[in-house]
């Protein structure tokens, strides 16, 4: 292996470089006193998602997720229930609520299927769909795949296809095994860190939130209603005033009804865009 132009080459993140001056100034012992036995020093997280105070936070290694989210982040918006924390950026994993007391360091995060990665920390609440969140991450890694090595280039695309099937109501139970099998092959055999970690969100979600995948597949239902393809919009006749607004706004003209009479959605043509739901002034449209 050779570096750039055959010379030794050093590539590091800005955060690593930022630690160097402090270590030079105060010494390695000082730095080692902070953090845990295998993860020294501090770590900067980009706290975001459904948390009150978002932004960059720097904490000693070993601080628990609970402290970061509730003490520093001020808890969740609207007092909602924490569902999961996604750490490490798009290649990290989803950590379920019952693991948030684990001290955050490299080893612990890895042992629960996530990673330190980019230092991203996204808080998900009860209204977030785990399946569509993993799909989002995979969309990202699929886009970022450079295309050089086969497992990542072809594999992430296939995993995304499977997730799209599941979130649109065409999933099958075998798909879950396929996701795991593909995911492991990609992790084990990819060329660079991107492919080696791209399946993480899916693999960890399958570990901790398998049930939610199963509901999408077996019941063709998204418990959080985030997967629009699995949502049904219906007009409640009792509430509908027949104002015709939805019918005029529906992009595929699948709402019928006479002026001042309750309207009806022709479900077979509905593309689940949600426009009617958004424009109705009388809350007459139900989303299930």
């Amino acid at each position, binding site marked *: 292996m050779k570096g750039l132009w055959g010379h030794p080459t050093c590539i590091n993140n800005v955060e690593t470089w930022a630690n160097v001056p402090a270590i030079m100034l105060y010494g390695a012992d000082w730095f080692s006193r902070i953090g845990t036995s295998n993860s020294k020093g501090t770590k900067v997280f980009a706290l975001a998602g459904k948390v009150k105070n978002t932004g960059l936070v720097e904490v000693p290694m070993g601080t628990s997720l609970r402290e970061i989210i509730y003490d520093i982040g001020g808890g969740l918006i609207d007092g909602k229930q924490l569902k999961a924390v996604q750490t490490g950026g798009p290649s990290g994993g989803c950590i379920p609520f019952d693991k948030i007391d684990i001290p955050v360091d490299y080893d612990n995060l890895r042992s629960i299927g996530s990673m330190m990665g980019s230092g991203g920390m996204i808080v998900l609440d009860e209204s977030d769909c785990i399946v569509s969140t993993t799909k989002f991450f995979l969309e990202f890694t699929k886009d970022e795949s450079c*295309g050089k090595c*086969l497992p990542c280039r*072809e594999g992430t695309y296939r995993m995304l296809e499977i997730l799209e099937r599941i979130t649109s109501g065409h999933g099958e139970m075998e798909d879950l095994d396929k996701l795991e099998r*593909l995911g492991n092959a990609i992790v084990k055999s990819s060329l660079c860190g991107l492919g080696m970690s791209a399946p993480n969100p899916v693999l960890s979600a399958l570990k901790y939130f398998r049930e939610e995948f199963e509901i999408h597949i077996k019941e063709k239902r998204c418990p959080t209603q985030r997967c629009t393809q699995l949502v049904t919009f219906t007009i409640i006749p009792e509430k509908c005033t027949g104002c015709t607004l939805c019918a005029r706004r529906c992009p595929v003209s699948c709402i019928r009804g006479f002026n001042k009479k309750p309207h009806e959605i022709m479900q077979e043509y509905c593309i689940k865009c949600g426009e009617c739901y958004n424009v109705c002034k009388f809350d007459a449209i139900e989303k299930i």
Partner: protein
Amino acid sequence: MKYINATIDGMPVSVLEGTTIMEAADKIGAHVPRLCYHPFLSTEGACRICVVEVEGMRNYLPACATAITEGMNIKTNSPQIRQTRRDLVELLLDNHPKSCLTCDRDGNCELQNLAYKLGVRERLFEGDRKRHPIEDSSVSLIRDAEKCILCRRCVRVCSEIQGVHNLSQLYRGFDTVVAPAFEAPMDDSVCIKCGQCINVCPTAAFIEQDATELVWAALDNPDLHVVVQTAPAIRAAIGEGWNLPPGTPSTGKMITALRRLGFDGVFDTDFAADLTIMEESHEFIERVKKGEKLPLITSCSPGWIKFLEHFYPEFIPNASSCKSPMQMESTLLKTYYAEKMGIDPEKIFVVAVMPCVAKKYEARRPEHYLKENVPHTDAVLTTRELIWMIKAYGIDFLNLPDGEFDNPLGFSTGAGVIFGSTGGVMEAALRTAYEMITGEPVKELEFTDVRAVEGLREATIKVGDLDVNVAVANGLNNAKTILEKVKSGEKQFHLIEIMACPGGCVAGGGQPLVYAGDYVYPLYPELIRKRQGALYTIDERKEIRKSHDNPYIKEIYKEFLGKPGSEKAHHLLHTHYEAKLPRGIK
């Protein structure tokens, strides 16, 4: 040199520092499957089919790209590794057309072979697949990106061996495609049509333009007098189509097979090779006398000529104006032969069997037409296409009696035969030029100094009092090296032989794609050497080994052409070149 100790599948190995896991495993007979790997190109490490398990490593490592380190404990097999490899190959199939049954590479496709061997028997992950139109703008070759598995061997051969850099990986991720700049049609690119991408491609993503239909139709047309000529390198390789060991000369069987296919005349391009030597030696001597336009550079490789026109137009005056032997032979078939036989040249259909796909392009260059719509060469078949035609016709090639070429355009000397190898044109030219210059017979016929499998050779040959500096280059990156030396004035040469393909025409882009072990690597030096060997053996066994001693050559000059370099010879046997766009980047 340090030795490193490691364990592969429980067996201790001791290898030189720098040895890869794949090389070490090969030595102990533990064959790791591979796909992007190619022994003569740089390591890509992209397909990951060659992954192995190394103790202490979280992930698998690619055997082709990992050097062994002290104490490594390697496992090339486990149920998990085999499943991973199978899944990877399946991922390729999922993104590949299901058209094996109608595919040119059916039966000798590395992907197909690998899928079978690794046991891919079901498709679990199938979904969308990439869609690309078939790109067939070039008269030489077709690019079918849907069959491309992105191993980038073609990218590497086109840049590392040919220095053309026509192909690159474009876009990213699932959209990645290998194509020329701007995804331009091959015909609008700097492609020199050497066909080496075909030679290294594991699938049918690069393949020649098919000419067999045209030839079948001509053979079936009672109004046409259909004649064929075969290049030197064909006889050295055609037998491989029937699993004869590489290097088995099959001239006689090939001739008989051609007659059975229905050709009205079977001629030898080697005759024109002898003629090329006459013209080129004359040209050389003239230039040496006048001291101008030196070095003289050979012009029989149309891939090289296209390279010259795109990349080194400043050297156009140095290139010999001689047509390639194929074009000389075709021209004579439609003039001399037509006259002699009393046949209307427009009724003669000339087929050339070539080891080369660039010849398909050369035949369509506007300079090579008798008149509008009447090319000198009507169709060019590759060795592969001819093998297929013989098989399709049901000819039992192996049991054919030997045949003889027709005359006068079918008799050649040993000098004409060795044209098919790198260094061959140079050697043939030296045999003749030596005698033309000194007026004395050559003492040592075999100029072994210029024979080489390696890509580059320089030598100084004593011709009388003259020290003739010669260079032989094959593979255009080597040609670049020589031309740059000439440009910088570092070296003064009199004569340079350049052939586009590594090893010369014996390893041309139209030669059989034979298996070497489990893989199709037509660039194996061993294979090339064997094919070259066949040509040198034929040369050795020939009674006449110098072009100017060919009695039919003497006759054609007397009867028809006058002298070498005469006006008529110029008109019929010489051509010209011009700078072409897009300009290549050296």
